[in-house]
């Protein structure tokens, strides 16, 4: 049984309700049988991947949906050494999909090799003209700087044999020269009303009664993230149906945990408390919650709980330590330094107010 998020993904441009304008534009764009390197950017759950899949389908037809997942060793001949990387890829006859995060430190060589391989196995069209294949790079903001540098000339040289479709949420992490080589498509998060519309559509197809008050809470919880909304609805459905008017969407474990950390910080500011918080941060990292997400989420949870007077300082520490976290090696140092800073600042503030 596929999850609702997959089951109700619109698979052709004609079925789009949200992002209808982008869908129409992309449809016109590929009508000529051609399209430029493209970069989709926007927040998580906005519908980027859905657009990409519909785009591939519009170019190649249903054939792109016949995908295979393969794990095979790639042998890459570098001038200085031979590299062998085991790689899991998702591919059809027309495209290949890659998550740089799965590739690790050799991403620049792997990406180059794949593009060259695509150029070698370039398909022949019915009219004898040569077609192109598509490389989909998910989370391209996690592609190393070196790999991005490497893409520059390659995107120009192989532009007729291989087109890139890139997807990311933090577009500032994609370097300017790479962006300059793409059509950049901004995918805004759908409005609350649009999220509601999608929820109602799914409920109807699943033959569910969706009370308005409950649906509004799911929309609120989702924060303009469609994936979050649909996953939440499905979980709620499993927990209790018919939906109760007072039924609350359940937040994810890690979110609750971070909220708890924020509460710990605001409750007591002491070395002992810092020690407790640190163990919780370790716990989150051990569960593979990305450090930048911890930092961001923790900041927003703290902001909910503190006076206006110290909000800007808190945000400025967060911005500073999150940047160091990106540049440094060990995330825990910077998370902990942030917490210590905030604790000290909160304490000073409380003392100045005569509250501690």
């Amino acid at each position: 049984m596929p999850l609702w998020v997959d089951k109700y993904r619109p698979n052709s441009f004609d079925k789009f309700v949200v992002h209808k304008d982008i869908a129409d534009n992309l449809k016109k764009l590929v009508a000529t049988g051609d399209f430029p390197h493209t970069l989709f950017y926007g927040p998580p759950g906005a519908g980027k991947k859905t657009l990409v899949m519909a785009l591939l389908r519009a170019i190649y037809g249903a054939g792109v949906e016949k995908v295979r997942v393969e794990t095979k060793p790639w042998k890459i001949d570098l001038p200085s050494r031979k590299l062998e990387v085991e790689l899991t890829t998702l591919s059809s006859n027309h495209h290949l999909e890659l998550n740089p995060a799965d590739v690790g430190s050799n991403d620049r060589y792997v990406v180059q090799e794949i593009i060259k391989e695509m150029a070698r196995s370039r398909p022949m069209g019915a009219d004898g003209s040569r077609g192109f294949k598509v490389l989909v790079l998910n989370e391209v903001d996690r592609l190393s700087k070196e790999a991005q540098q490497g893409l520059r000339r390659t995107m120009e040289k192989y532009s007729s044999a291989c087109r890139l479709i890139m997807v990311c949420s933090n577009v500032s992490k994609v370097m300017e020269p790479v962006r300059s080589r793409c059509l950049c498509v901004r995918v805004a998060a759908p409005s609350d009303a649009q999220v509601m519309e999608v929820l109602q559509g799914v409920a109807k197809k699943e033959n569910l009664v969706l009370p308005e008050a409950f649906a509004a809470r799911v929309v609120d919880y989702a924060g303009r993230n469609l994936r979050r909304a649909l996953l939440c609805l499905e979980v709620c459905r499993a927990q209790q149906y018919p939906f109760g008017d007072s039924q609350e969407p359940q937040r994810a474990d890690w979110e609750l945990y971070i909220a708890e950390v924020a509460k710990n910080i605001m409750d007591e500011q002491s070395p002992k408390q810092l020690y407790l918080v640190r163990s919780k941060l370790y716990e989150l990292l051990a569960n593979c919650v990305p450090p930048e997400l911890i930092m961001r989420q923790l900041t927003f949870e703290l902001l909910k709980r503190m006076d206006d007077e110290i909000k800007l300082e808190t945000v400025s520490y967060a911005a500073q330590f999150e940047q160091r976290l990106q540049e440094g090696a060990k995330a825990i140092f910077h998370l902990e330094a942030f917490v210590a800073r905030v604790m000290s600042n909160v304490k000073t503030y409380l003392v100045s107010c005569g509250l501690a």
Partner: protein
Amino acid sequence: MSTQPWVEKYRPKNVSEVAYQEEVVNTLTRALETANLPHLLFYGPPGTGKTSTALAIARQLYGPELMKSRVLELNASDERGIHVVREKVKAFAATAVGAPVPGYPCPPYKLLILDEADSMTQDAQNALRRTMETYSRVTRFVFICNYVSRIIEPLASRCAKFRFKPLQPAIMAGRIEHICERESVTLGPGALDTLSAVSGGDLRRAINTLQSAARLGGGHVDRATLLDVSGQVAPEVVSSLAAACRATGAAGRFGALQKQVQNIIAEGYAAQQVLLQLQAELLSGADGGSDLRLCGALEALAGADYSLVVGADEALQLLNVTGQVHAALAAA
């Protein structure tokens, strides 16, 4: 239907076709006549003609055929560690030069193009010094980069340096009109100006934007489509953010700023683009530029831009910079 993007189709074939970089073009044209070329260093922002110029020189010196054996292009997609570069250059320099081709100067040296050289490590660059000297009789080097400061001084000082400038609107308009004519694209009112404004002197971006807009509009390009495909932040979003930054009282409370920033993030706007437009908005609203408080605000914007370039989180940076700008403007 050709699958060649316009940027490649209209890449200058000769140095004389390179627009706006007169200083470069004049010097190189003279050098090409005598086929006497110094080592070269091209630097400048994306899409200003650096790679195109280097490739054009190669073609004009050797012609399309001989070029294959006389020119070696190494860019950031190639492995360029210390040993690799040395070995490659050595092997390349050691092969005999082929017979000259009539109609081309075919000087008795080879051309080594090191594109995107700013991505080479300092060590690799250092190793190149010796290599350059050893083979300078039989090879000429062309270094290309965006940031000249990333090229070590000993290399830079061995080259004739050329800065590639962001293209001026009028020059850009000329190239765009040329392409429109060839591709039978019609331009709506204000389209040319918009294209110049959104591409910031980057001709590749302008051509790409034009091609996308032309496809969407079925051969007609209007202002709205251009703005749409160019990633500009909607003016009302920027002015509302700027207003919040200037606000005092309830509208200037942190919660109000946070709400604006969260909306901008949800709308998916590129944070750097937001900074750029916010800066323009703040400057345009300034009373004659005598306002010292603006300095603090501009400094905060610059800091955030740097942070974003090194990979910091967009949401935290935008929230922080908005708060900092607000604080700077509120200072007595």
